[in-house]
């Protein structure tokens, strides 16, 4: 039966096409990390407190990139997140310092405010049909202005220690120490490894059961080995320092939750459908206006989380906080393989994109590169990543 051979040959091609981008991205991240680790910083990038610092310092980019990737898949953009981080940071600090709210209440206020602001922008985009570029450009000005108005002195410091712990603390060492490393962190690392392997194995088994295209077994194993090694190595580095930062745990939860939302929920599917062909989505009964609206509510809430993390990290609300955060988030999403015209993008891509930006920030700083040159380099990396993507897509004929 000659059909078997042709399908076997054909089966390989699409799976490779689909994954080239993901592997390329992951590979690029590894190459960048290796370059900095072994060359530019002479081993400092991944030593001592630096891995921990890398995570806490760049958590905001990951959080914002998750919200931004959904906005961009739907074919919009959000320029206001940086200013909104400053404004919500101001409100959360005032709530605790001036209005004597307990920490948990201040956090709830921040999240609610994020949702309200998101609803405000979503209203203009979805129902009045003002382009998101304009709505959020206006938001960028409005929220920055309000942040300055709220923080009359420009800064509101002296926040409760419990609040600052959110971005600067570590999870308690419940399992004690094992050979001088934090056991909880290693356990979490192992749990992640097992969950990852199970998930990968199950999805591969399902594809096999239906005889659907899947990766070569060798590639599959190599990917698994690399990923497991990376997870364990990072766990070890963190455990060797002070353990698992709270923010890392928060990031893990957000990444898993939003991967699920985009891949497995009707809401997520509607976002892709709208981005891919808005007319067709409308003609299929997708309530495109409401989807638009909730995408903005969602990024509002995520921006509030980013604001909490940023404010806690600094231990103070500053009216100039969050400057250029929108650009970091947008750059991460596009480095992560999202398409400018919408319809394409992944949470995992956005997170890796954010990590690329974070490693660049951190590595260049450690290597003592001037801040001005750091910007030049980040700009060139963004351009190169997207150019690579565009050329790649043109070659495979799906542009």
């Amino acid at each position, binding site marked *: 039966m000659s059909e078997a051979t042709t*399908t076997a040959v054909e089966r390989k091609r699409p799976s490779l096409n689909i994954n080239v981008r993901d592997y390329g991205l992951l590979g690029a991240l590894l190459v960048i990390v290796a370059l900095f680790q072994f060359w530019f910083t002479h081993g400092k990038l991944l030593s001592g407190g630096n891995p921990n610092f890398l995570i806490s310092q760049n958590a905001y980019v990951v959080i914002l990139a998750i919200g931004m990737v959904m906005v961009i898949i739907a074919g919009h953009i959000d320029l206001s997140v940086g200013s909104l981080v400053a404004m919500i940071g101001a409100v959360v600090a005032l709530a605790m310092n001036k209005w004597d709210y307990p920490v948990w209440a201040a956090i709830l206020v921040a999240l609610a405010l994020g949702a309200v602001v998101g609803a405000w922008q979503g209203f203009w985009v979805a129902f009045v049909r003002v382009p998101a570029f304009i709505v959020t450009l206006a938001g960028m000005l409005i929220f920055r202005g309000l942040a300055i108005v709220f923080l009359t002195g420009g800064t509101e410091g002296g926040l409760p220690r419990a609040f600052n712990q959110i971005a600067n603390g570590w999870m308690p060492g419940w399992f004690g120490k094992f050979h001088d490393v934090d056991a909880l962190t290693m356990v979490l690392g192992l749990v992640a490894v097992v969950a990852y392997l199970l998930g990968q194995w199950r999805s591969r088994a399902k594809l096999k059961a239906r005889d659907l295209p899947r990766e070569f077994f060798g590639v599959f194993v190599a990917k698994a080995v690399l990923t497991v090694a990376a997870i364990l190595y990072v766990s070890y580095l963190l455990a060797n320092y002070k353990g698992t930062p709270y923010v890392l745990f928060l990031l893990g939860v957000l990444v898993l939750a939003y991967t699920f939302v985009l891949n497995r929920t009707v809401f997520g599917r509607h976002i892709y459908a709208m981005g891919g062909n808005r007319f067709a*989505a409308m*003609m299929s009964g997708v309530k495109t206006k409401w989807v638009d609206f909730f995408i903005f509510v969602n990024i509002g809430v995520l921006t509030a989380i980013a604001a909490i993390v940023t404010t806690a990290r600094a231990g103070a609300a500053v009216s100039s906080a969050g400057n250029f955060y929108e650009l970091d988030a947008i750059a991460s999403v596009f480095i992560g393989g999202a398409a400018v015209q919408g319809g394409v993008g992944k949470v995992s891509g956005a997170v890796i994109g954010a990590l690329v930006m974070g490693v660049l920030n951190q590595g260049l700083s450690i290597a003592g590169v001037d801040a001005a040159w750091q910007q030049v380099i980040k700009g060139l990396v963004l351009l190169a990543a997207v150019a690579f993507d565009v050329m790649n897509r043109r070659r495979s004929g799906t542009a």
Partner: protein
Amino acid sequence: MSDLILRMTDIVKEFSGVRALDGVSLDVQRGEIHGICGENGAGKSTLMKVLSGVYPHGSFDGTIEFDGEPAEFRSINDSEHAGIVIIHQELALSPYLSIAENIFLGNERATNGIIDWPETNHQARLLLDRVGLGDKVTTPVLQLGVGKQQLVEIAKALSKNVKLLILDEPTAALNDDDSAHLLDLIRGLRDQGITSIIISHKLSEIRSVADNITVIRDGHTVDGFSMKDKDNSEQRLIRSMVGRPLDNLFPARESHIGDEVLRVENWNAFHPVDTNRQVIHDASFYVRAGEVVGFAGLMGAGRTELAMSLFGHQWGTKISGKVYRHGKEIDTHTVSTAIANGVAYVTEDRKRFGLNLIASVAANVTGANMSEVSSFGVIDLHDEISVAERFRNQLNIKTQSVLREVNTLSGGNQQKVVLSKWLHTEPEILILDEPTRGVDVGAKYEIYGIINDLAAQGKAIVVISSELPELLGVSDRIYTIAEGHITGDIPRAEATQERLMQLMTVGEN
């Protein structure tokens, strides 16, 4: 007296193996108005694109002689330079620019790149006077109606010293007065020595304005006559246009027609931009269970507009009328309510309105009925793939996997994906708009088979098509629609292409 301005001989044009033009010849005499007739898809537009250089010299076989010299146009610029200007059905004016700016767009009255406004406006004025348009030359084009925009296009053509003017369906979007004015203008230009080719579906109009007529069918020149000939009747035209034999293109079907399922009463809809133009006038029709009802109409007659305004008010404004299902009035004013009430609309433009081309077959198939494969907003990917596999088998969709992107599929298979999407909503009433457009012959036969199966299941089916043989092949009953009016309701047994064509081309009652 055979002073030919244009002679096209044995033009053959292929698109990836399909012959759109298969030896078409066209002779046009200097100073005449030449009509070209043919069904949709006969090859008229392709022929005009060959002539105007859209398809460059060398991409087709055959010879073109223009103005006594062999013509080898490589682009539209070449053909315009030679004096051929084509005015398309969709006007190509820039809406925010003034009339004068549009006339000289790309051909500015300028010295060293600096526009000479007095000269521009003066020249524009002279041209507007020639076409009988009194508006100020500084008026932005978007303030003009379609009829006047058409005149601006002609003025633009005149500014390029046109020798041969080609008008593609010039009156399709015009009312009677504007049409009459336009036809007069073309006659006037003839007296000034400008030759015109006019492509039109409106046979009475062609016969009134043309000196000679060429009929194209299936990529061949099948007839040509002068209006001075003895037999110049509309019957001859229609016979030439549709005269293809009906072979066994359609799978056989026994109709079992039940009770009325869908009834639409007094449906009206207005153009969404030109909100005073009524496009659908008091349309009333019904469809019974197990019945396939055809809608025949020419391009621009309002077939798609009728369907899309019915389905979730996705086209038009000021929509009024009533929709009944089994005698009970139903709400179809949003897509969701229409789907919930058992109505499905398979679009004529699958790439624009039907598919997310960069998503998988499976995602497209479940796209209009996600609730069936999800619970509490979470999709069961297993279910989704099973559903997609079911339709893949049922409709014989050829793809390596249901997880492949839809844009890797052929046109016929894409069409089956759209059909699957709508069958997955489990509709009782299916409106199929050009279900076989851009689909090869084999897949067409399969789609007709699917339509028959659906009818056998007792669904009420509407098929909208520009191809009369297709309608005659699949329908139990055919409505004709002309200029937004339903002009006929003909049982299959009494329907002939000639009769349908007559009802489709009747003017404003």
